[in-house]
């Protein structure tokens, strides 16, 4: 029998919704010599009662979270080190009896997760900035927004399709409506659809998710009404292809090669299909504007498209295109948040480099 653990402590797992107790121990003296392979944990509701097995941990571990406790009930814990030869076999009761006991402890739920206080402070600061600048904008303050080439080119791209008498394709990514990038994508779709309606150019929106189908169709329909051409809207302009990533890419590639649209927009979340779509569009000479918040797909779009909205530019597009003061205000607030992060990076860099203060601790979420 390996020697028992040097010490064992128990506590109600902090910052949780209850139902869990954390057990900590100092390793058995035999662990260093390789005599321990696993620790098995036992639990009982009374100090001398029958202890039942609740879990195990490898010999490297020194903590265990028992996630099966009932709140308010007192528990006692024991921990038994096992050598490799005993794995899979029942632990001798004498070993359980000989193990150290810790307790009593009872679990309870907490009302605030203190590990996330830094996130809360960060989010609040950012929200205050955004709301402040939205109010400023509402009050009539003029806000500057830098030129975004990709969005400046939207008019030109739609116009080109009109001149050539060809279609415009709009691809709102391959993710569902629960992705903010998809929301940003369909928001821009509204503006593009309005332009297309004004220019009397056919806009086709093949989508890969049913919920996006419903939303996108509603948006395009509204845009056509807003442009004063509700009669020009056709239901099958917005249509579903498939949820399958590469099936969707294959479907669009086929349509692009056959119908040769003059303009293609890629706005939303994309994965490996990004280059397959963009390169096919490039091969037929379409003017292509892409925007995504997927960092790993940006290089592909940059290489194959005429204009690419990089990350946050996609989210700024709605404000940029509508020039609505409230939306512009939120952009300004966002920029202030970015400025704060930049300052934090520089301050942190200096402090950490010279070892003055453990600044990065403020941003840690792991405890």
């Amino acid at each position, binding site marked *: 029998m390996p020697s028992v653990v040097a010490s064992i402590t128990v506590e109600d797992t902090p910052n*949780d*919704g209850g*139902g*869990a107790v954390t057990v900590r121990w100092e390793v058995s003296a035999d662990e260093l010599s390789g005599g321990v*392979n*696993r620790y098995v944990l036992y639990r009982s509701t009374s100090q001398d009662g029958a202890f039942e*097995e*609740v*879990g*195990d*941990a*490898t*010999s*490297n*571990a020194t*903590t*265990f*979270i*028992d*996630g*099966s406790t009932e709140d308010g009930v007192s528990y006692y814990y024991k921990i038994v080190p096992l050598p*490799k030869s005993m*794995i899979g076999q029942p632990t001798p009761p004498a070993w359980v009896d000989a193990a150290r006991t810790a307790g009593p402890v009872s679990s309870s739920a907490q009302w605030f997760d203190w590990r996330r206080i830094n996130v809360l402070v960060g989010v609040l600061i950012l929200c205050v900035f955004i709301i402040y600048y939205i109010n400023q904008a509402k009050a009539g303050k003029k806000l500057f927004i830098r030129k975004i080439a990709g969005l400046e080119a939207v008019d030109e791209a739609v116009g080109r399709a009109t001149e050539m008498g060809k279609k415009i394709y709009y691809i709102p990514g391959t*993710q569902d409506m629960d992705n903010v990038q998809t929301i940003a994508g369909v928001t821009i779709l509204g503006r593009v659809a309005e332009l297309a309606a004004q220019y009397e150019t056919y806009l086709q929106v093949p989508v890969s998710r049913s919920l996006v189908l419903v939303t996108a169709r509603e948006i395009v329909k509204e845009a056509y009404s807003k442009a004063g051409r509700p009669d020009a809207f056709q239901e099958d302009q917005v249509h579903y292809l498939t949820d399958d*990533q*590469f099936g969707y890419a294959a479907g669009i590639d086929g349509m692009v090669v056959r119908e040769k649209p003059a303009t293609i927009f890629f706005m939303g*979340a994309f*994965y*490996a299909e990004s280059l397959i779509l963009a390169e096919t569009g490039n*091969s037929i000479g379409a003017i292509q504007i892409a925007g995504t918040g*997927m*960092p*790993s*797909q940006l290089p592909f779009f940059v290489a194959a498209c005429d204009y690419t909205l990089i990350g946050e530019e996609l989210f700024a597009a709605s404000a940029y295109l509508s020039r609505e003061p409230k939306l512009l205000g939120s952009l300004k607030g966002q920029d202030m948040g970015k400025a704060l992060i930049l300052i934090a990076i520089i301050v942190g860099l200096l402090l950490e480099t010279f070892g003055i203060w453990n600044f990065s601790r403020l941003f840690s*979420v*792991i*405890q």
Partner: protein
Amino acid sequence: MSTRIKEILVVALVLVFCAIIYIGKVSGWMKGVTFSPAVSMIVIILLAASLAVILVLTIRGRLVGRRTVFVYVGIAVALPLFMSISQYIPISPEVRTLHDGLEDLQDGSKVLVSFDYDPPSAPELQPMAESFFRYCMDRDFKIVIMGLWPQGPLQANQAMEKVLEDPKYAAKNYQYGVDWVNLGFQTGNEFVIQRMGTDFRSMFATDYSGANYETLPIVKNVKNFSNVDYVFNLSAGYPGTVEWVQVAVDRYGVKLGAGNTAVQAPQCYPYLRSGQLIGILGGMNGAAEFEKLTGHEAKGTKFMLSQSFSHMIVIAFIIIGNVAFFMGGRKKNLSV
């Protein structure tokens, strides 16, 4: 010759090639077809010579089109499969740290493997899955499999079947439910990971084949992440490594290693540098390096020659493209 006829010719050639390979595979004589080192060298020299011709043509102002590039990539991928050139595979730090993390585990540890990919990315990720399983069996690890992608668990089964074909591993007599289990797919993306943080069973009431969670000895004591010793995620997109880092690592402090497609891997490097990820296997070379470290050279190593060739071809065409660019007076945008 019109473009359409050229296209038909190329398609016909590809079809004939595929038919030959298929017949060869079925009748068994393909297995023995390997170019000797001398023939391999001749093939390489011929390829290099033809690229030199293209370079000369480009200097003379005749730029090759994208279809030519495609043909060369096809050749660069296919021919090395028959070549018998061995390569020295250097180990990158991110693969070494992943392997070291596994080495630190005790024999018999419990590992959770999440299969977050589907067949399209299988050529890159399946070799990783197979070599990971081999490693686990060498160390007598208990393997708990799950998937955030619907087809993930099917891929896991395929990988397991493949590994068990090897008599060495079949002899290990890994029992389903005791030594390994496939919990199947659960819808809900990152929410699944979050709920597993408190209760695995709430997400996987039954395993892949419908057996109750409680009846499976391997997961009898597995209630949440603190009961598994290591998590390995094979990912081709969303949900995948990023979600595992954000939920399982940040909230529950799990030890996480990841295998990613080459397209996806760069996105995970920031998490590697910050210590949230123990290591990454990126694409085919990640698989080959892991195979080398674990001493089981398999698919990953075999396909690395194709990878080397295709990289060289792409580099050659980048050079040709730049020559064309400079010859064209730097301003003319040469279309391909």
